[in-house]
């Protein structure tokens, strides 16, 4: 049977993709951010997950407002990256696991989640930057897992509630654990933490709120479901709603997790950058 060994969180800022492309990892601006990743890679190299379920939010590459799904799950054999319009290099395709995707979709529709299934899904920086951070070299990295992208709408209100996001994760965890193949799975929650790109409040970052979220996501994710979407925008900034991805990830991990590593750094680009490795207790 499939097994979830842990969860990873990271910001997925496009500037990080550029910093990787330009090899700026040891520059003073970037070092406090990139230094968070080697301990997580060691854990990944040790446990070698077969599949990464990558929960991210598309930013206008895979979907447009013409037909905007709340929750979309990739069901393709591979996922291409494409030009996003502002210069981040295009990466080679990512290998998927379509039969596993379909198992997840079947299970989640049974559990009353109204999934948009995607046999074609161009993945943007929200998906690719975390893959680069955790598995540097990508195709040249022998440990690169197969990937299943899951995107939630944070582009346009109404976005899912924090409760629905956590419940999505719980149903996802159940779906994964019921897959009869022996695969080791990590679940990625990408995006956030606090940031606001638009309006007179652009540049808003909320360290106190981010740190509270990083604590509660480990010990008491249910308590975070009390936060309304309106309040999430106030406390985390208009794009800090990406914290929904962390909630979805967390729901999949089960009741007890052990935080093996974490880092929080301000700023990367306009964002408070949170990185965590949560191991699932047996």
């Amino acid at each position, binding site marked *: 049977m499939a097994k979830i060994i842990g969860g990873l969180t990271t910001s997925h800022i496009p500037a990080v993709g550029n910093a990787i492309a330009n090899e700026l990892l040891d520059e003073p601006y970037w070092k406090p951010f990139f230094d968070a990743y080697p301990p997580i890679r060691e854990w990944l190299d040790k446990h070698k997950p077969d599949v990464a379920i990558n929960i991210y939010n598309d930013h*206008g590459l895979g979907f447009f407002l013409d037909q905007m799904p709340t929750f979309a799950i990739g069901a393709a054999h591979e996922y291409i990256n494409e030009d*996003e*319009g502002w210069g981040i290099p295009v990466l080679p395709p990512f290998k998927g696991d379509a039969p596993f995707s379909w198992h997840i979709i079947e299970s989640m529709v049974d559990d009353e989640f109204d999934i948009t299934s995607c046999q074609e899904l161009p993945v943007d920086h929200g998906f690719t930057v975390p893959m680069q951070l955790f598995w540097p070299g990508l195709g040249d990295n022998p440990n690169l897992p197969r990937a299943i992208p899951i995107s939630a709408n944070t582009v346009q209100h109404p976005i899912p509630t924090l409760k629905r996001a956590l419940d999505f994760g719980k149903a996802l965890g159940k779906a994964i654990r019921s897959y009869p193949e022996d695969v080791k799975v990590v679940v990625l929650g990408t995006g956030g933490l606090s940031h606001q790109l638009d309006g*007179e409040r652009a540049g808003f*970052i*909320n360290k106190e709120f981010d740190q509270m979220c990083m604590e509660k996501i480990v010990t008491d994710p249910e308590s975070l479901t009390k*936060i309304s979407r309106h309040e999430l*925008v106030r406390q985390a900034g208009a794009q800090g709603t990406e914290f929904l991805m962390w909630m979805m990830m967390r729901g999949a991990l089960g009741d007890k997790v052990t935080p093996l590593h974490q880092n929080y750094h301000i*700023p990367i680009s*306009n964002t408070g950058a949170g990185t965590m490795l949560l191991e699932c207790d047996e």
Partner: protein
Amino acid sequence: MQLDEFDHHTPIEGTTFFDGEMAMKGYALNKMCFSFNKADAREAYLADPESYMESFKLNEGQKQACRNKNVLEMIAEGGNIYYLAKLAGIYKMNMQDIGAQQTGVSVDAFKEKLRKAGD
């Protein structure tokens, strides 16, 4: 920070919720910006912005906001920042440039504000 401190209703200053109302208002503008994922669309816009905007049926307010390269005006016209970023990219503006423009400060001052959030 306690979770029960939260106030769920009052407006958030300097923040426009991109909801159905804004999505309807900005549809043409956002659709044009979405097209800028493709390099040839970006070139076509730079070569002749007026006819490119017309081909997506932007209204006059949207066109003027684009002519002014003014992000706050674009947002008021229904623009969504994720799509607008693709238009800004055509002019080699990054997120700090956009942030500085919207908040009326220099890019250095904007970066310093971001840095200070970590103190």
